[in-house]
């Protein structure tokens, strides 16, 4: 009797401290606690971070539409209303495209942060290279975010956890830049010169991005130093200046990952995609969206007719500038020449049809998977060597470092476009550099932020309000999620 009672009591006591009975992990499934066992896991997580680069299409289209280069276009004046509003500088905190920019780039920050947060879980040769690449990617996404939104919430040690939207405030722009610099300095110190796989970035890509970041911060000496690492490496040259290369092919498939590709984002059309998840597409969504509506003819495929260069943009090129016809497709002339047919969508005078298309990134005939408008395989050259030369020239000039070298870089770019050398220095040279940037980089998403960082936006962009439009509004939903702890940007 007593024994049994003792047994019962013992059982209850024993079992009462066994809540660990319910501490189990999902059988045979990989979760974040069982991941990061070795190199393979880290590489797999790194691929996941590269994956988000493909959503860069929304950054490029949105900033290009915001600039004075192009009209929004589309089917009608209300097609993708978010872009139409941005084209007219009438955007508000309710804007799906701006929300996409926020969401996609933070998704990239989170995926890179997953690796960085767990960097000490395993040790193997080459781990530092992977961590460095993850920090480069995180810097890329954070740089997008700070350009679009100014100060953002940051968490250098790793991933945001649910609830931290209420505890982590927006950092100052300076702090975000310091964080980006920190990541990129780690990257340039620890990455190999050669990329580990054709799709992965190398140390020179990190130098180029860091140089660009310094330029945005107007740290000209540091910018010039980083960019000269890229130039002096001899790894790149302007496409069309050597061997059999033809400048006209710069934006064709043949020149992808070529001598001018410093930081290039990879796309392919071998996998289908749908509108319910544009960021899931392995193709370049920007390309299909920028195509000529209802196009039927040679070389190109049809698209949705967004990002339409303006007539002023077209006319900014001198007729002998080879870049004009590489950058911009004059559809009327093309149709007359080739017999191609096409439709006109949005005919609004402010945002609609111009007769010009962003030839750099419109679809070429290829056999991509459906929905073919979303899976165009054209790679995006996020940083081209020509951009590096012009950024270096700007840093050398504005930093008062070396106008002669700056002029040499500018003339390299001009010569490739079939233009002759110019002679200038000081502010005159700076104006030339700015103009060459506009012409060289039209349709690539750089113009708006170039204008903003150099204080020239209000004189160039119609409707631009100083002290407001330098940054875009934080999405209303995000303000609500933070319960007002993230303050809205000035003027919105």
């Amino acid at each position: 009797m007593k024994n049994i009672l003792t047994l019962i009591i013992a059982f209850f006591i024993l079992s009462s401290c066994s809540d660990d009975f319910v501490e189990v992990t999902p059988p045979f499934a990989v979760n974040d606690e069982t991941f990061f066992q070795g190199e393979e896991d880290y590489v797999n997580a790194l691929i996941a971070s590269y994956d988000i680069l493909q959503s860069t299409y929304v950054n490029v289209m949105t900033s290009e539409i915001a600039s004075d280069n192009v009209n929004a276009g589309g089917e009608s004046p209300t097609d993708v209303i978010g872009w139409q509003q941005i084209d007219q500088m009438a955007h508000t905190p309710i804007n799906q495209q701006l929300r996409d920019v926020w969401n996609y780039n933070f998704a990239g920050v989170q995926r890179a942060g997953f690796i960085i947060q767990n960097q000490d879980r395993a040790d193997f040769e080459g781990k530092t290279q992977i961590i460095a690449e993850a920090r480069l990617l995180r810097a890329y996404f954070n740089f997008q975010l700070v350009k679009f939104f100014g100060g953002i919430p940051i968490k250098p040690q790793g991933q945001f956890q649910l609830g931290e939207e209420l505890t982590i405030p927006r950092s100052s722009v300076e702090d975000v830049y310091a964080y980006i610099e920190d990541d990129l300095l780690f990257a340039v110190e620890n990455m190999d010169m050669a990329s580990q796989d054709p799709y992965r970035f190398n140390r020179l890509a990190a130098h180029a991005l860091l140089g660009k970041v310094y330029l945005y911060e107007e740290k000209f000496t540091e910018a010039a130093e980083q960019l000269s690492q890229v130039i002096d490496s001899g790894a790149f040259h302007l496409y069309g200046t050597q061997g059999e290369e033809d400048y006209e092919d710069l934006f064709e498939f043949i020149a992808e990952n070529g001598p001018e590709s410093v930081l290039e984002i990879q796309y392919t059309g071998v996998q289908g995609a749908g509108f319910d998840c544009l960021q899931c597409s392995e193709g370049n969504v920007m390309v299909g969206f920028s195509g000529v509506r209802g196009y039927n003819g040679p070389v190109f495929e049809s698209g949705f007719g967004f990002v339409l260069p303006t007539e002023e943009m077209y006319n900014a090129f001198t007729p002998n500038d080879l870049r004009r016809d590489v950058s911009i497709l004059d559809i009327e002339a093309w149709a007359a020449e080739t017999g191609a047919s096409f439709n006109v969508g949005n005919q609004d005078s402010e945002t609609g049809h111009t007769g010009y298309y962003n030839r750099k990134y419109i679809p070429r005939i290829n056999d991509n998977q459906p929905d073919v408008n979303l899976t165009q395989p054209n790679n995006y050259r996020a940083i081209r060597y020509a951009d590096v030369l012009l950024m270096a020239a700007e840093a050398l000039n504005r930093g008062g470092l070396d106008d002669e070298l700056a002029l040499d870089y500018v003339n390299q770019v001009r010569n490739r476009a079939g233009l002759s050398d110019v002679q200038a220095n000081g502010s005159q040279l700076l104006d030339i550099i700015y103009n060459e940037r506009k012409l060289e980089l039209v349709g690539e998403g750089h113009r708006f932020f170039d204008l903003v960082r150099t204080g020239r936006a209000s004189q160039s962009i119609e409707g631009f309000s100083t002290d407001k439009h330098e940054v875009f509004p934080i999405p209303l939903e995000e303000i609500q999620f933070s319960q007002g702890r993230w303050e809205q940007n000035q003027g919105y």
Partner: protein
Amino acid sequence: MLKNYLFIVFCIMSLSMSAQTIDISGTVIDGGSQIPLPDANVQVEGTEKGASTDFDGVFTLTGVPSDGTLVVSYLGFVTQKIPIDGKTTFEVVLQPDTEALEDVVVIGYGQSSKRNISGSVSKVGAADIKKLDPINAAQSLQGTAAGVNVTPQGGSPGAEANIRIRGVATNGDASPLIILDGFQYDGGLNSINPQDIENITVLKDAQAAIYGTIASNGVILVTTKSGKRNQSAKFEYQTYYGFQETTRELPLLNATEYALLLNESYANSGQTSPIQNLSGLGRGTDWQDEIFEVAPIMNHNLSIRGGSEKTSYSFSGSLLDQDGIVGGDKSSFVRKTASLSIDTDLNDKLNFKTKLFYTNQESKGLNTFGLGSVLFNAINMAPTIGAGVDNLDGEIDLGNEVVNPITQIRNTYNESVNNRLSGTVQATYDYADNLNIQARLGFNRNGTEFREFIPVFNYGPGKVFNRLEDNLVNQNKIINNDYTFDLFNTYSNTFEDIHDVTFLLGMTVYKSFGEGLFGSRTGVPSNSFDFADIGTATGAGENNTAGSYAYDVRRLSYFGRLEYTLDDKYLFSAMLRRDSSTRFGPNNRVGYFPSITSGWIISDENFFPQSDNIDFLKLRASYGIMGNDRIGDFLYLSLLTGQATYANGEDGLVNGIAQGPIPNPNAQWEEAVKTDFGLDLRLFNNKVNFTFDYYRNDTDKLLISNIPVSGIFGSSAPGASSPTINAGKVRNQGLEFELNYSDNITDDFSFGAGFNIATIQNEVLSIRGADFVEGGAFGVGQPLPSRMEVGQPIGYFYGLRTDGIFQSQAEVDAHPSQAGLGATAQPGDIRYVDSNGDGVINADDRVKVGNPIPDFTFGFNLSLNYKNFDMNTYVFGNLGNDIVRNYERDQPNVNQLGYRLDRWTGPGTSSTVPRATTSATANKVFSDFFVEDGSFARIQTIALGYTFEENLLQKIGLKQLRIYGKIDNVYTFTDYTGYDPTASSGAPIGSGIDFGFYPLPRTYIVGLNANF
């Protein structure tokens, strides 16, 4: 205290000494089975003198007072008092006390009596189950227990039923917990042989809180039959045979009507009709006639029950074989069950009990749900096409989904075999006075093997069912295991005659684990099901795929319950359960679930007016907190199920690994706060039984999956999604009435009737972080029609409101533009209401257009016995719910329902049915045009039986024989135009949408019950 007792006993003894004493003997007989009752208690009233009957039911007593009184009692029989009056031999016939047995109510880890229970409990007894004689045990709750709503998942053989107790309070799994003889049973009621069931008890309020985190959807306790002690083997054989038919065919157009309407719709669009020659079309093919058939059903059941002095046993076996009313031998359900139960006293203090259940189910099924189902094809197939046309090449274009349903049936090959072994082993030890401890292990092991073959077949150009290149075999094997280990100690005592105390303390360990393995392969030889096996097939690479999953869910619980009754009038119980579960996040690993119930038997009070009319009146109140842990596994963990695909620069892909849905470390159970006030009333010598309840269930921390969160967490990444967060609150409240009347009018005629009705009012009280949650489906490519939104019932229908038909262009012009819906309106089109008054009609004008939750559910039953005849009928129904008609394909050439004949053809011709046209219209946009009143009343059962006279039977060795005839699903009163108003898809957001519901069959059976 003890002294007092001794004094009284002494006094009585001394009194009895003064009378004359004699020796007596006798036998005690079971009045039911007419066999002797061993171990019955025979006591001389007021003395300690007494004896037990021996194995032959015989007792002897010496020295009893000749003027005394014998008290003869046996558990489960009506106690008899017999004056001795100087007699020396007695034959005592004890009548079974059916009421006493019925009065026992199981309440989880113990039992109580109907009289003393203070929670809201419904019980369906063996008598009801026997009369209903259901194929699926769940049907015995339909219309018999107030507040319990049972909706079958379809009429296909073997279909399960959705059971909802007091409404829907979650958008996850809303089905109640099923406890079979004490252990958690996840097999569904359909896998239990209905004839094995002794009774079903439904715990509807805080009474269920002893089950803590698994109790919030209510608890259904199934008790199976056991043998009786001291009873020779009792054989019972039941069988029935019958056939089934459809209750309804939809009114569809015949070939000529179809062609005329088609020509009109093309002409209205300025196009040429695909059917030019109408002569000789006649009625064409009636596709419903082609696929519906009369299908047989058959059941056998044999049980043997009995027991000795220390042991009782029960064995049963059953076979059910049911074919479908669509698809003949391609649609069938065969259920074989066996059960064994043994209950034995190992010694005076130790009892051992085991029950084992084996179920084997084999089923074959057709595609019965939604777009692409056999019925959907039968409804939409053109009547001009011959029944034998397998390949629709060259026939009128019916879109990519509609194919010949007969061909579809012929090309359907699948079989599913399910083997389940469940059981419980239990030991009870009375280790001290008033104390016992029970240890119990319940287990389930359930294996499912599924095989499906899809042959190479061409249904016609572009058909989605086509397999042109390769056939395919799919195979699954799934093993589910669980065990429940209970250990609990019960103390029960009475103090000073008026304080009844029962105290329970225990623990439960639950573990559920299993895995699934599935694969598919092309290249089955000879394009034949005979060789449909992954091993035999020859496909390679992407044509040979495999997948798997595994799970492990555990729960550890401690619980206590104190039941206290004062003076047999004041009832009180309090419960507390502590649960920890693998499903809860690390921040909420442990939950506590308290509850109290109380009752007051007011009719026993002295101040209560003594009236012959009121026999019993009890007031009840209960309050408690319960949980729902069926929330999905490991919501708190970050599983690496995301998409991580990048281009590798050479036109190929490189795949990595990424995080999937965002984890929620705070994930926890849904929590229901349940309040109930009720009363039980018995009138007129217990002939009338009345129960009333008011209930309010507030379910808080409702889990909402994929709820929007800040973008900084990365939910926009491919393959990622927002977390599942406890963010909603829903209230269900209502009233329940149950009224039962039974009376023996004469010796030959008895009569019983029961009526119950319940109201449900469902309202979403809050959703944190989202304005609404959408669900359901309507048409193809249309917005989701069902919503969960604050202030509305969960899953209400959200669409446009209609206002008749435009009769003229002037009316169209005077109305806000409907172009925003996709097409400019013309005369004959549906006129929609500009609900938000902004001058245009578009998706922003959607409002509430219906509610799938009934306002009232009711049941009615009637039983008559006249001499040897018995007659029973059961009726149940819903009032006030809406159903969405969603089985018409939106395609210009498919067949149409009969109501289309009343279409608009010119001003004044119709104000309800829009014009016929093939042009783009906004008439197919989800609106109240597609919402119908789903109210119904169904005569579920009419049964007529005849029981033979016993003396006739004895000659052929039978103790009892009843033959009967029964019709199930006799008739349904409803305005609903679809097949069956009991249609339900079950999902809380998205229920009440009819995708071409497989109608429940009407069944005619004849059967017999024999005891020997």
